[in-house]
């Protein structure tokens, strides 16, 4: 995070310097031409640029200098041919066996893969893709009130469907009121219950995270949620019917 912050900080600084330089370049040159330092400008530029050129040239050559070493000679010995053929066959069968073991890691039943960067999902049954489409995941907004803060991000990793509900009711948490600039009602207050907002179905992933429907279909494909995964009605129905309790949901 620090590195990214630094990069953004310096890149904006770099941008602004570039902008100012381009804007005032004419005046700068005119002023400079009147001074005696102008005569020494090429020398100054040379002194300033040379170290960086030197560094990058060195790094560039460093990566390629091993060209001067001849490549490794393959001294194949004919008497090893029988042994080699045996070992090749062994290696091929080992590759097939290892690939099978790797394929066996993929769940045989249905599972869901969600890409939270592009807000897309893929529904699989074994190695076969059944459906793909767009969804909405966490917005990465960090909402800060006077004494609390919430980060609206979708959890990454391997999760499991822990529950399934038809016609779910949304019990609005505190942040839903704070985000809208409304006073937070007490627990169990009628204003906390919202019907129809989550669509026809909801699949629970634990810790309050759900896969559910949405009224705001124009936002599908964008990171706009508070951590839940929103789908359109048809995709949600297909997923609801395909996944069972315990099915895996991979989010990255």
């Amino acid at each position, binding site marked *: 995070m620090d590195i*990214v912050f630094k990069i953004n900080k310096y*890149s904006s600084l*770099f941008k602004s310097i570039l902008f100012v330089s381009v804007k005032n370049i004419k005046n700068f040159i005119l002023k400079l031409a009147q001074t005696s330092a102008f005569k020494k400008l090429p020398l100054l530029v040379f002194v300033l640029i040379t170290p960086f050129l030197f560094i990058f040239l060195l790094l560039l050559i460093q990566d390629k200098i091993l060209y001067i*070493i001849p490549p490794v000679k393959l001294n194949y010995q004919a008497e090893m041919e029988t042994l080699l053929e045996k*070992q090749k066959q062994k290696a091929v069968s080992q*590759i097939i066996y290892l690939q099978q073991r790797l394929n066996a890691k993929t769940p045989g039943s249905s599972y869901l893969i969600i890409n939270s*960067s592009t807000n897309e999902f893929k529904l699989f049954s074994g190695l076969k893709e059944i459906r793909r489409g767009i969804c909405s995941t966490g917005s990465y907004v960090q909402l800060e009130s*006077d004494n609390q803060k919430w980060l609206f991000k979708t959890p990454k*990793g391997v999760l499991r469907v822990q529950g399934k509900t038809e016609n779910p009711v949304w019990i609005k948490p505190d942040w839903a009121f704070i*985000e809208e600039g409304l006073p937070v009602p007490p627990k169990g207050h009628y204003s906390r219950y919202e019907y129809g907002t989550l669509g026809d179905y909801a699949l629970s992933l634990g810790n309050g995270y759900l896969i559910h429907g949405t009224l705001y279909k124009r936002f599908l494909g964008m990171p706009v949620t508070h951590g839940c995964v929103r789908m359109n009605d048809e995709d949600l129905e297909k997923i609801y019917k395909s996944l069972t309790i315990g099915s895996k949901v991979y989010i990255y």
Partner: protein
Amino acid sequence: MVSKFENTIQSNIVKYRNAIKYFTVVVTVILLMIAVLMLYAPFSNLQKFNIVYADSSLISFDKEELLNDEKFYELKKHEAYLKSKLLVAKNDSISLSVNLPDSTISIEVQGVLLHQSKLTSISNSMFFERANHLALFNYFQSPFKTKKSISNIEKEPVIYMKAPKDTIEAAKNLFKADTSLAKRVYVRVELERGLTIILTDNQNKWSSSYLYTIFSSGLLSFKLSLKDIFHFQVPRYNPVIRVKLNRNDLISIYRAIPDKAYVTIHM
């Protein structure tokens, strides 16, 4: 009186010129020494690499000379890559998998393929072409772990927002799109065992943050080399694998892999 004054000035000018000459000579000698040491680094590293990793006790077949057969070498590398992947699959975190012969890069978790992308360009350091086959085989036969990653995009594009005072202020808090999708993406992943992977997207747009990241990572490498030189050591040299891929795929992959991710490479 005047001539004495002139003489003093003259001698001062000579002294000044001599100082500049000596300074230039000293700087040139230092720069030459740095250059020689830095150019010697790949050779020294290759030599060490061949000694450390060309250990025939690490291989599962009878004779190491068999690796001189290109077909057998390819098969054994593939086998080692799959073994590595199986080992990483025991883990619960997302891992990165780079398959250079197939020109693909993927992320996996528990052996399940989450995302795969085609590599549009691959360029490796000469180091890999000049290293001993047995050493290379041993080097890549176990998974790597990331030490550090540098990029010009955020790992988590967090947008900070103060709670609005009322509904009017809340209405002003419109949806803000993640702007990192608009710029050219550069990701440098440094792995254990001195390997670096540089991933860039395949668009030709240059941005200030892209240039800055390349510049600063180059400068960082040089700084580390200088540090070694001033400690009277041969400067470090990390061989690099450079790949280009689709921008959205790169962003998805970079944001998916954790800070200490496992990386398997099929060379």
